[in-house]
């Protein structure tokens, strides 16, 4: 079953007097449990497509369905509800709320969902352990390294068991070792929890982890290939 279906998406931006094409009649279907990389140079439209899938940005035309939800028909409030209940986000930077500790950042989404305190505490502890941050639960973002911060963001993205994780340049601010560790974590979560991952990147090391690699240029999909995903040992 398809996790995401995008049909004929178009999006343009006005920059001064110039009209920039973000998405140019993009159609794509992503299966549940897939691990997809959107690649391409800056301005190719990968982030725009990712944001449209996550309901953060509205396309000018076209249809988007995530699971059973027709995203393009939703208002601001229901879109927020969909993001809360179905999607986990990992951004390039500014991923965490600086006044909250690692544990509180992870629990934040669960709090908004109204989950009980005991369950929040158990799951945040377990997930932080899973991403290798045991013992760092009470540190604030400023007391964590860039890689550790991204791990907290990943923990927060998956703690509510979303069906889809959208990651925008998650390794851009990380050194190669930390980036590799983060990608190993993504693959592990994908394989163990059957979470669909869609990652926008222009980092070739990240692309190597994908089962499906979609290349974009000038708002269009120029290639869509399946590839062998490396097996991560538990």
């Amino acid at each position, binding site marked *: 079953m398809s996790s995401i279906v995008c049909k004929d998406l178009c999006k343009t931006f006005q920059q001064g007097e110039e009209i920039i094409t973000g998405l140019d009649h993009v159609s794509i279907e992503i299966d549940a449990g897939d691990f997809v990389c959107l690649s391409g140079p800056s301005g190719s439209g990968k982030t725009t497509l990712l944001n449209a899938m996550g309901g*953060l940005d509205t396309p000018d035309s076209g249809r988007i369905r995530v699971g059973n939800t027709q995203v393009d028909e939703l208002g601001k*409030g229901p879109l927020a*509800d969909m993001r*809360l209940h179905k999607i986990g986000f990992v*951004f390039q930077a*500014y991923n*965490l709320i600086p006044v*909250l500790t690692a544990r509180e950042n992870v629990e934040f989404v669960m709090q*908004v969902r*109204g989950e009980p305190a005991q369950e929040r505490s158990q799951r945040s502890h377990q997930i932080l352990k899973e991403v290798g941050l045991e013992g760092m639960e009470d540190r604030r973002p400023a007391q964590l390294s860039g890689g550790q911060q991204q791990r907290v963001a990943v923990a927060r993205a998956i703690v509510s068991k979303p069906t889809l994780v959208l990651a925008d340049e998650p390794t851009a601010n990380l050194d190669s070792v930390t980036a590799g560790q983060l990608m190993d974590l993504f693959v592990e979560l994908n394989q163990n929890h059957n979470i669909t991952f869609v990652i926008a990147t222009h980092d070739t090391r990240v692309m190597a982890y994908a089962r499906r690699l979609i290349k974009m240029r000038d708002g269009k999909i120029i290639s869509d290939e399946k590839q062998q995903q490396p097996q991560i040992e538990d």
Partner: protein
Amino acid sequence: MNILPLKAMFMLAWRNLWRNHRRTTIMLAAITVGVWAMIFMTALMRGMVDDMLLNGIRSLPGEVQIHHPAYRDDPSINNSIAAPDEELLKALQIPQVTAWTSRVRVPAVISSERDTRGVVLLGIEPDSEVQVSFDADTIYEGRFLEDSSDRGLVIGAKMADHLETDLGKRVVVMSQDPDNNIADRGFRIVGIYKAKLASLEETYIYAGRDTVQKLLKLGDNVSEIAITSEDYRNVDNWYPRIKQAAGEGVETLPWYEVDTYLGSMLAMMDGFVLVWIIIVFLALSFGLVNTLVMAVFERVREIGLMQALGMRPSTILYQILMESLLLLLIGLLLGNILAVGTVIPLQAGIDISIVAEGMEMMGTSSMLYPALKLNDMIMANVIVIVLGLLTSILPAWRAASYDPIEALNKT
């Protein structure tokens, strides 16, 4: 509904407030001083107006008065009333009434060998009169009247000056009896009093009620029955009961109807306090809005992140309002403590005798007693909270209206 629980919202608001210690501290100081100014100045104004009203009521004197219906138009001896009957005496036992007295009150002329002045002659029953209006401690020469048949006369110090008379000297008091004949009598001055207001010393002279009744051939009749309670503001709670017992044949009026100027003074004061509090708040609101706008502006990306994570715009709005509420509550707490802490030591009175003459024209005495009223404090606090939250809606709305993508990409 994806709303952050109140506890989490409170915790987030609290930590956000202290992200910029200096700004929050400055804003708190501004709210504290503003609230202090509201409450402290209101206490001073209330104290001044209380003093004016109490002096005014004292010069009536009595918080509720029972008269002949025509007495206020023609305060002559012809418009007298009978002494209280049983039903009225029973009504006067209600707990709200702290004291009452009946008195003869007529316009009269007092003459010494040097001068003649128009006065108000009060024929009083001394024991009950001192509980209603006259302060026996204000006698600074001689003594006060001993009973209602006392044949002596007590006059004010200013009047003694005008008449160029003194303690122990005789004066003649003239008025009219009910048959419109001159009724006059020689009195020996047994006491001279000083009042808070010099005008009272020039207006009222006191003699025994029985003596005056005999002089004016009044029998047991009196001009008025004056009643007092613990708080002149609460007179409406009990005076209808007295009015009912006094019956239709007499006029029973509360102080604010006896002297409408005093009544309107109290209403004007309430309006003035409200205007004062709002003006101080308006000055504060600029700082409050600026603080919140800056707090929102600095956190645009974070707000975008919260929206991306699934926080509804309304929840963002509540979050910013919570920060404003916290700031206001802390400022109010400190402001209230500061106000109470500065008013209480001053409740023994502030000496304003340096401007006493000017103040006396307004009917206030030379000591100002700040009056801290719970109602005024509640009003100041409620106004600050309500208007504070209203003015915070603008920055909160702005935060809630951010587009998540634009907010996340803000540099």
